[in-house]
């Protein structure tokens, strides 16, 4: 690969050679592998967002072997420390940075501007640069299907969601969940508790308890990195589902299913592009059709008739002939959200800052 032996790198290597004699052979690579650094805000456990991102790098490693070197940095709080740590990964020679949280946006963008030879992927953001691509999942396609199942199983007609931050990505997930549920039972209501953290198991469980106490009998664990909500729901005997990776082992009986994400096709394609010098900054909004969003581990208690409807809709979503955000959709405040027959475009979906009718909790103002 010629990318590794630019003039700048040669000068750098020469400068480092002096250090190398004292430190050992740590810098004396003949053919430098591509350094890929993944930074995520919460601890990488066996499940959840960080786990899904890390797992998606395994196929990249399998494909390239020693030609790539992957560094995973977990539990990095968003803020000035994250900026420094991302800077350090680049200073260490990593040329491919995956900034795995919205809050890394400003710092990661600065790195992209200063280092044109570094390619940056950024989760859930909206900024784009020639070497900076935001990526996000169309979770809403999966949560719509979960909503259908939830409405079929709910006895109280009340559903709940424990949600991390009131950003559009999570709002759309809740809205689609509500719309899917209303497609089965128009009278369904959804309550939301915002915990304002990506990782706070104690607070998440408190929120789930509060929702269950209000009569919610299916809980949507929206962007939690731990099985906090899922395991609590198993104990309480209410159905629950989550995003990113399956937590069925934490709730063998009441696990409704999982809106899983598999980022490996995307990561692999972007690493390919970087290595061939064809990386181009662009917003990636990937869903069922891209096989990034997948629904798995459906609960056998879901009636066969509902399950049939769900797979029909899923096939239509994959084929592009159905969108959960097709009008008429009424906003929670009673005004018109989407006109009858119209479908929201991606630009409107990624900026959604209102709840649909049926979501009873107000958005944090």
């Amino acid at each position, binding site marked *: 690969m010629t990318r590794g032996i630019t003039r700048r790198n040669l000068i750098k290597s020469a400068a480092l050679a002096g250090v190398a004699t004292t430190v050992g052979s740590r810098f004396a690579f003949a053919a430098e592998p591509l350094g890929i650094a993944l930074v995520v805000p919460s601890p990488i456990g066996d499940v959840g967002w960080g786990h899904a991102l890390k797992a998606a790098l395994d196929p990249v490693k399998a494909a390239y072997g020693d030609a790539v070197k992957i560094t995973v940095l977990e539990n990095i709080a968003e803020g000035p*420390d994250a900026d420094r740590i991302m800077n350090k990964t680049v200073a260490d020679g990593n040329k491919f940075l995956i900034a795995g949280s919205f809050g890394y946006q400003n710092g990661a963008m600065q790195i992209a501007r200063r280092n044109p030879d570094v390619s940056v992927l950024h989760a859930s953001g909206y900024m784009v640069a020639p070497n900076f691509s935001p990526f996000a999942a169309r979770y809403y396609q999966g949560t719509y299907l979960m909503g259908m199942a939830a409405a079929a199983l709910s006895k109280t007609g009340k559903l709940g969601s424990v949600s991390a931050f009131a950003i559009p990505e999570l*709002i759309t997930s809740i809205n689609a969940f509500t719309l899917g549920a209303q497609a089965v039972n128009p009278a369904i209501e959804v309550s939301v508790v915002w915990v304002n953290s990506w990782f706070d198991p104690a607070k998440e469980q408190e929120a789930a308890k509060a929702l269950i106490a209000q009569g919610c009998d299916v809980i949507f664990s929206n962007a939690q990195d731990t099985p906090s909500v899922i395991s609590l729901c198993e104990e309480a005997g209410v159905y629950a589902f989550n995003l990113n990776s399956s937590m069925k082992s934490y709730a063998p009986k009441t696990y409704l299913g999982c809106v899983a994400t598999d980022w490996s096709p995307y990561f692999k394609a972007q690493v390919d592009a970087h290595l061939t010098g064809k990386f181009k900054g662009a917003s990636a909004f990937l869903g069922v059709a891209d096989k990034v969003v997948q629904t798995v581990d459906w609960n056998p208690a879901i009636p066969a008739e509902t399950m049939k409807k769900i797979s029909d809709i899923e096939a239509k979503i994959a084929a592009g002939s159905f969108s959960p955000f097709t009008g008429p959709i009424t906003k929670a405040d009673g005004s018109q959200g989407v006109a009858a027959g119209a479908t929201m475009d991606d630009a409107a979906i990624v900026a959604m800052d209102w709840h649909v009718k049926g979501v009873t909790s107000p958005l944090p103002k």
Partner: protein
Amino acid sequence: MSAALIWPKLVKRERPSLTITILAPLLALVAATLLNLLLYLIMGKDPVAVFHAMILEPFISFPSFSEVLLKTGPLLLIAEGLAIGYRAKVFNIGAEGQFIIGAIFASALPVWYPMATGQWIWPTMLVAGAIGGAMWAGITAFWRVRLRANEILVSLMLSLVAAQVLNYLLLGPWKDPNGFNFPQSVMFQYDAMVPLIIPGTRVNASLLIALALALVAYVFMQKSFTGYKLEVGGLAPRAAGYAGFSEGRAIWLSLLIGGFAAGLAGAAEVAGPIGQLQRSISTGYGYAAIIVAYFGGLHPIGILFSSVVMAAIYIGGDNALVSADLPIAAVRVFQGSLLLAYLMATTFVRYQLVFLRPVSGVAP
């Protein structure tokens, strides 16, 4: 009892040992370093790589060293302020909250007037932050003086309140209208940022302010009569009372100084490396500064060194995280073991180990 059993005993020294006072932090640093390197070895990490990334790199690599300087600023500021109070035995544990309120006060200006220009903006923000921090600490002082409420609890609890005030502002009135509902303010305009002093780094003028205030703290604590009164009030409150030194005044002064410094640090952080008000404006500076203050022997010059050491531990830890595959928790273990080792070492300032032989007829 067999004579082979000779247990060392702690015996109080006649006067505190100056040698140990100076040696204690160094011994603690060496002990903590060795202990942690051993830990990394047990964890299966390459101790050479860890040692290089953690201990050497913060000082030999300029980009790393500039980050050490950046991190030294707030630690130095807060710790100098806290130490003044601690010497007067006023235990302000709530610097974290005063830091947050300082950041909020400073942010008010760019949040309300995002289009304002002029080099007066950032100094005004720093002053506003310092006043905000002092006011927040003033609440603790009020309850302590008026109701004898324990200042440790009040100041600590107020930190949690401050975090909620921050949450409220970021989720509500101060949320960036174009920020996709994420809890953060607008990015500050150019004039709301403290000017950089070393090009190519993130080190800004607030470090110079911190150094200048460290000098002021030195003069105040070691040379001024007010500083002397404060310290006597802490060491011998009744004697201070007879001498006409008011305890209430000492508490007010201690907390206001601590809050002022922490608020200033908070303001410098949002107007410095962050550039906006967001949830994670502090990574525990207010608490780390307590370690810094004690590690520096509560002496203004000692704190100057201890703040650099603590900053280097942070930066070294981040380096080790990236380059030597060390988990972030290992950094916190290092900090904790450093304080522990220091507290153990300081025992020997006032006590010494004596190997007593149980000889009959001689009182121990």
